[in-house]
């Protein structure tokens, strides 16, 4: 579903944020990107969204080489990839329902389809009763649920999450993880950058560890810390 081949990203100014990374992520996988702050997790996610161009290497997303994607096709890539960020990225002047509907409006869906679909997804994330509220009238956990709803409302095959629990307390974090797990079980591939040990250890999914932009570990059903030494 996602394939990286010798990907390197050097920012202007010379920071090597991602260094010769190769990765193969299968359809339906749930992959944690772990590593200290500055290890290159966010950069990797941005590259997969073509929010930044790669310096070297190739990235395929859903069968397409996105490093060669013409600019005007970038919106189409974004529509097949749902995104969730630490800071929610909701539009402040739109209500919960409007924020979620926006992802469908962008696709040009008729409003007769948008209404029911938004209702359904808000039901799924447990916010049906807060559809008319504005983001500022919600708690952090609720805002993140809106963000997850928006990312998933058009059923993208892939979801990229960058520290989605970074601003949330443990209990709320668990709620979000439960939601992502449910989405993953529908067959959606999920890549999630995090430095939350408890979550990674509890989920027992594939773990890709980064250090200074390099992959230093890649384990199926891994833990946040190196497990090889414990065994």
């Amino acid at each position: 579903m996602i394939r990286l081949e010798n990907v390197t990203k050097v920012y202007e100014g010379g920071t090597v944020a991602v260094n010769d990374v190769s990765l193969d992520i299968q359809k339906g996988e749930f992959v944690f990107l772990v590593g200290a702050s500055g290890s290159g997790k966010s950069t990797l996610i941005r590259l997969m969204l073509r929010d930044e161009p790669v310096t070297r290497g190739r990235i395929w997303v859903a069968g397409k080489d996105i490093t060669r994607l013409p600019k005007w096709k970038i919106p189409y890539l974004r529509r097949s990839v749902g995104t969730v960020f630490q800071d929610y990225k909701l539009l402040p002047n739109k209500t919960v329902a409007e924020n979620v509907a926006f992802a469908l409006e962008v696709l040009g869906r008729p409003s007769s389809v948008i209404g029911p679909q938004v209702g359904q997804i808000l039901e799924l994330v447990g916010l049906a009763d807060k559809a008319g509220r504005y983001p500022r009238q919600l708690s952090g956990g609720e805002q993140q649920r809106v963000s997850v709803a928006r990312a998933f409302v058009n059923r993208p095959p892939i979801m990229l999450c960058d520290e989605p629990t970074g601003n949330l307390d443990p209990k709320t974090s668990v709620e979000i993880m439960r939601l992502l797990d449910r989405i993953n079980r529908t067959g959606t591939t999920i890549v999630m950058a995090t430095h939350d040990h408890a979550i990674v250890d509890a989920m027992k999914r594939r773990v890709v560890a980064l250090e200074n932009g390099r992959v230093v570990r890649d384990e199926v059903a891994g833990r946040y810390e190196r497990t090889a030494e414990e065994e």
Partner: protein
Amino acid sequence: MSRIVYLIREALSSLRRNVLIVIGAVLAVFISLALAFGALVVNELLGLNIAAWQDGTHVVAFLYDEGQNNVPVGAHESLLQEVLEWDEVENARLVSKAEAWIEFQRIFENDQQMLDALRDPTVLPASIRIELQDIRFHETTRFRLEQQQQVVRQVNTAAESIEQLQNLSQVLRTLGLGLAVVLGVAAVVLIANTIQLAIYARREEVAIMKLVGASNWYIRVPFLLEGLIEGVVGAALAVFAVWVASDNLAKAGQSLELFKLDISNQWFFRWGLLVLLFGAIAGVVGSLLGLSRYLRDADGTGPDIPKGF
């Protein structure tokens, strides 16, 4: 359909949120287009007045009396016939001494002093009043008349002042056009600035929209509409203001018979539409300029996602 409603709603809400900036842009467009349009109106007025002064008498030749100074009887009439043959002459007529007296009495109808002063009506000379085909020939005509020293006492012509006005009008026309161009460019730049500010104020929103997969055009259209509205409103205000000003001028000028100050509504309609069209174009071009900076970066994907996550 819902798309259009959405886009218009976006444009209006952006206008509402940036009231001060928007007022600035509208005022800028208003001032520049009002001045430009004003220049056009002044120019039109000059044109009208020159046209009005151009009909009628351009050259007057005052004649010596017949029977005196060796002027034979019938010399006036034969000069008139000769003048009528000249190519540049559209029309000419003879005003006899008697007619001159009648004219004098009419002109100074309310001025007893003048009437009293002129005790002897026979001192008023006869004259030939000439209308030229083209005012530029007045020098030729004057020269030809002055050759007739025996009959022609003096040649007066209004053509020179008319020609000066024509030249002035030409200068004003060029200046007005230059002014209109400069001010038009200023309007475009100011709208570009406004749109840039509006986008800057909404840069996070724009980034989010792009993340969700909105195309550049989807993001652009509300800003284009915003610029269009600013341009058209500014232009409409300008047309209205200039129209009101010129209408008042025309009313005030009604007593001044010398000048023609009323411009036809048709003219206003035609040029007003053009100014509106220009405002609309300025709005759209300004927005495109304002947008281009923000929607283009190294990767062509628009503003970065705000850092810090």
